[in-house]
């Protein structure tokens, strides 16, 4: 339902604090970004080689109200002009999520606005609604990031079914851990992507976990991670010549292949009208190219959409966009809303 042209737009303020980005954004009608402010903590955590939950929570609290103020002023709106406040309530680091949830609840209460709880993983998918892509249903979405790997089906708008998810490490987490073992910096995804471009993807044959028939849309990357780390130790022990570029390319190929094959299989099985890619790993160049070419070969009529890099990583515009259909259905969250570390999509 698109509102008539003379109707005033529906403004939703979104808040996001599930991991290491503190973000606030205002989105009109679930599609138009009025402001999108992100305060990244990457540098704060870099020397620890990963996100430290306590440090993340402290920084979220220091930043969030400031970020909200910026998001409102950039959108040229006051709190009173908003229609709702949305927050990601999980999954993620529970202490970090609680900053966004507590803030959203109190702000909504103070301003007498409806509160909308959003599933962070589902919200990634809605980043594609902010780019004017011609989204059609049923659709298949692959969400891959440092915290989650999920294959979702949307038979029609506002209906989400989880087809599968990771059983152990998330895709982005696997990139980070392998990068750390290789002595590359944090975050590891972009480093491996860059290094792999000059390596041979067939140099080492790493395991690809396709899992059994029942779990064919689930993922498992811990075996791959161990294999890469073992291979690295083995080479170092024997003092053999080691090409980091070949290693990066072979590892990346093994991981990306599984993501692509399962996504294409799901698109076939559910007669998808389009395929969406989202999450931090969606910025990986090999994933984009391979998914595009495999999809074009298997299902030439099915377009692939992915958001620009700023909307791939965690942001609050996707939270506000995901909240819009819930707002229209009156699906408001109660004041005793809690954060949930392990919220699964499609519930």
């Amino acid at each position: 339902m698109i509102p008539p042209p003379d109707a005033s737009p529906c403004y939703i303020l979104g808040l996001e604090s599930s991991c290491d980005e503190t973000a606030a954004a205002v989105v009109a009608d679930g599609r138009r970004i009025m402001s999108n402010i992100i305060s990244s903590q990457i540098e704060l955590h870099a020397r620890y080689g990963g996100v430290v939950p306590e440090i993340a929570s402290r920084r979220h609290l220091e930043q969030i109200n400031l970020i909200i103020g910026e998001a409102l002023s950039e959108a040229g709106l006051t709190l009173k002009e908003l229609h709702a406040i949305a927050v990601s309530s999980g999954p993620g680091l529970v202490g970090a999520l609680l900053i966004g949830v507590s803030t959203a609840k109190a702000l909504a209460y103070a301003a007498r606005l409806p509160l909308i709880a959003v599933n962070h993983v589902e919200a990634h998918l809605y980043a594609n609604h902010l780019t004017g892509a011609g989204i059609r249903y049923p659709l298949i979405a692959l969400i891959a990031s440092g915290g989650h790997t999920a294959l979702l089906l949307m038979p029609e708008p506002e209906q989400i079914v989880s087809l599968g998810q990771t059983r152990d490490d998330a895709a982005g987490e696997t990139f980070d851990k392998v990068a750390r073992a290789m002595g590359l910096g944090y975050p590891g995804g972009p480093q491996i992507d860059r290094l792999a471009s000059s390596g041979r993807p067939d140099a080492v044959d790493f395991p690809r976990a396709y899992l059994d028939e029942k779990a064919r849309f689930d993922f498992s990357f811990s075996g791959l991670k161990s294999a890469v780390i073992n291979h690295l130790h083995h080479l170092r022990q024997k003092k053999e010549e080691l090409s980091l570029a070949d290693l990066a390319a072979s590892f990346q190929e093994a991981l990306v292949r599984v993501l692509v094959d399962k996504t294409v299989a799901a698109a076939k099985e559910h007669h998808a009208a389009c395929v969406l890619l989202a999450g931090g790993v969606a910025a990986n160049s090999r994933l984009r190219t391979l998914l595009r070419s495999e999809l074009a070969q298997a299902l030439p009529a099915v377009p692939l959409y992915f958001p620009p890099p700023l909307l791939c990583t965690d942001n609050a515009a996707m939270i506000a966009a995901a909240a819009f259909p819930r707002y229209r259905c009156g699906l408001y969250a109660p004041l005793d809303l809690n954060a949930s570390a392990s919220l699964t999509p499609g519930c």
Partner: protein
Amino acid sequence: MALLSADTLLAEYTLNIRKTHSERLLPLIDALLRESAVEREQLEAVAVAVGPGSFTGIRIGVATARALAQGLAIPAAGVSTLKALAEAVPTPGALICPLLDARRNEVYGALYRRQSAPSLRLEELIAPAATALDNLIGQLHRYQEPIIFTGEGLAAYGPPLTAALGSQAVLPPAPLRLCRASWVALCGRRLLERNPAASYEELLPQYLRRPEAERRLAERQKEGSP
């Protein structure tokens, strides 16, 4: 939480149960205002205990207070949990030691003296800190006079305190040891009388302790450096 109007305590809730603050806090604020027939827009300021205490618990309180202040455009005051506990002891000249369990064999503690009339202010003798109980007892030994203890840390640390300090240790009954919101509100009002424009932007927790990962990194760097 408590609602204070001038010198009148309009309403107060104290729940000392194990359910997350995240679920409880805002529904209770709403219930308190409803019962008191006060609209949220009528609130003139918000005060919150900023710790020390459970990191997550404090952050829920501070995040809620900051957002209420931002949303209602009112000032906000942060009150030390230890100071608010000490406020409950009115006796002039009394030495007051609030104690909270800081885990890892430490307590959050401080020492105050209630000044005599007319000021009756709390003078800080030992600044709030996370410290080993024995360390604190060593410091308290020097004041050879009775010390009134308060705070939930007494549940675990009452017996060793009595053993070490004998009759110097005065332990009030359990209901008097809780950090009551009315004292937080009262302390907050005093802070706001001195600084009427106190903003939520400066409102932050008083952790008294660095994150574990930060401490370990600092230790490793110390070992690594010559």
